[in-house]
């Protein structure tokens, strides 16, 4: 048991005898998975919010089902279920088209599954933010003769962002942490890399503490960035108390 600080530094060094490099690579893929899932979630969420606010009844019911089930079922079950269902479904589709089955890229599946989960939460956040835009602003823009696109990026987007940003920041924090669940289905990101490092050296405590600190750093840095962005999108708004 290496308890001296020299031993710990050797274990965490980024070059091969140490496992620091493995952890950092894992951290990079955690960030990549989270970012990908966040973007997919943003797309799904925008579509979902607009769909929920549109008057089309079947579409609204379908989206209601999507957001309710995804938010009610444990993430782990969703990820495992969708992981297998996604792989299985794609391979069946390929078989039906007489194409050879291929081993799906674990990264793509992880991003797709987490993005699907994020989309449900994003739908709710964005729907609330869109509803919070004063109707008068949009009517004023229409009265000035702005087209739909101009209206969107001059009026709707700038008024929507301050409302949506705290919710989006929360979702980003939760996807960075939820991405650890992908370890359970065997894709190597930070959590699984850490377990690997721990298993090969038997220094579980040091490695899990190190990776907890990496996650913590990730959270704190993103917190700071989101605060800056929020200050930027809230410029010109009157300060509350």
């Amino acid at each position: 048991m290496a308890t001296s600080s020299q031993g710990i530094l050797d274990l965490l060094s980024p070059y091969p005898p140490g496992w620091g490099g493995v952890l950092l690579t894992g951290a990079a893929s955690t960030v990549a998975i989270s970012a990908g899932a966040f973007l997919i979630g943003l797309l799904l969420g925008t579509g979902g919010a607009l769909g929920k606010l549109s008057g089309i009844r079947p579409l609204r019911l379908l989206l209601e089902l999507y957001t309710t089930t995804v938010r009610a079922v444990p993430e782990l079950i969703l990820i495992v279920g969708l992981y297998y269902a996604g792989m299985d479904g794609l391979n069946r589709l390929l078989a039906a088209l007489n194409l050879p089955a291929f081993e799906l890229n674990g990264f793509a599946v992880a991003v797709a599954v987490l993005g699907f989960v994020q989309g449900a939460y994003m739908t709710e956040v964005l729907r609330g933010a869109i509803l919070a835009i004063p109707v008068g602003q949009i009517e004023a823009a229409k009265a000035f003769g702005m087209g739909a696109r101009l209206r969107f990026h001059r009026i709707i987007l700038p008024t929507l962002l301050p409302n949506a940003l705290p919710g989006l920041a929360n979702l980003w924090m939760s996807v960075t942490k939820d991405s650890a669940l992908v370890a359970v289905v065997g894709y190597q990101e930070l959590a699984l890399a850490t377990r690997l490092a721990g298993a090969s050296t038997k220094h579980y405590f040091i490695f899990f503490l190190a990776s907890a600190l990496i996650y913590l750093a990730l959270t704190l840095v993103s917190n700071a960035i989101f605060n800056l962005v929020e200050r930027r999108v809230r410029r010109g708004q009157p300060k509350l108390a």
Partner: protein
Amino acid sequence: MTFSWISAYWPLLLAGAVQTLSLLAISVIFGFVIAIGLAFAQVSGGPILRSLARGYCTFFRGTPLLIQLWLLYYGVGSLLPMIPGIRQSLFWPILREGFFFAAVSFTLNYAAYEAEVLRGALLAVPKGELEAGRAFGMRPFTLTRRIWLPRAIRIALPTIGGEIVMQLKATPLAFTVTVMDLYAVATKVRQDTLLVYEPLVVVTVFYLIITAIIARSFRFLEAQVPVRR
């Protein structure tokens, strides 16, 4: 979809449900008690206590629960046997179980989230009510017990319901440390029968039912103390 396996596996499913529910109950009850301490430390503690409580909440809210669980189970779990005499102690049969580590890490994690909720609620209690209590000559402890804490809990009640549901959705992680909870039973059924989706569906329905029960009982609880708007 075939569900004939249920007849053979229902005792296991039932035992798994008990494990899941007891993990939930342990973490919510003990976590809530710790959270009250953490929240008061942040709202009315001295600078050292305050920063300690803040640091605790930041750490547990900023790292994934899975990492906290593995840090305890693999990390602390591998260090525990080095304490002399612990293997002979009375508690060793509990201390070597995955269930113990899952319960501890869920409790610590839940406490951090709940403390944040309670902190906001404590600050949201109207000043006038606290001043009225002081004017009646209540000591700080009596004031807290009679007015401050009950009012804060009432304010936080809807959020607490949400947090408990979140905690329920986190319990399947326990299967990664050999706890035979409901999700682990589903995994076992999958390995035994090669059915992938059916066990997951059954387990999901169970989680949905529990979620509905929690939501209902919190709506009932909230109705017990009417709030003037």
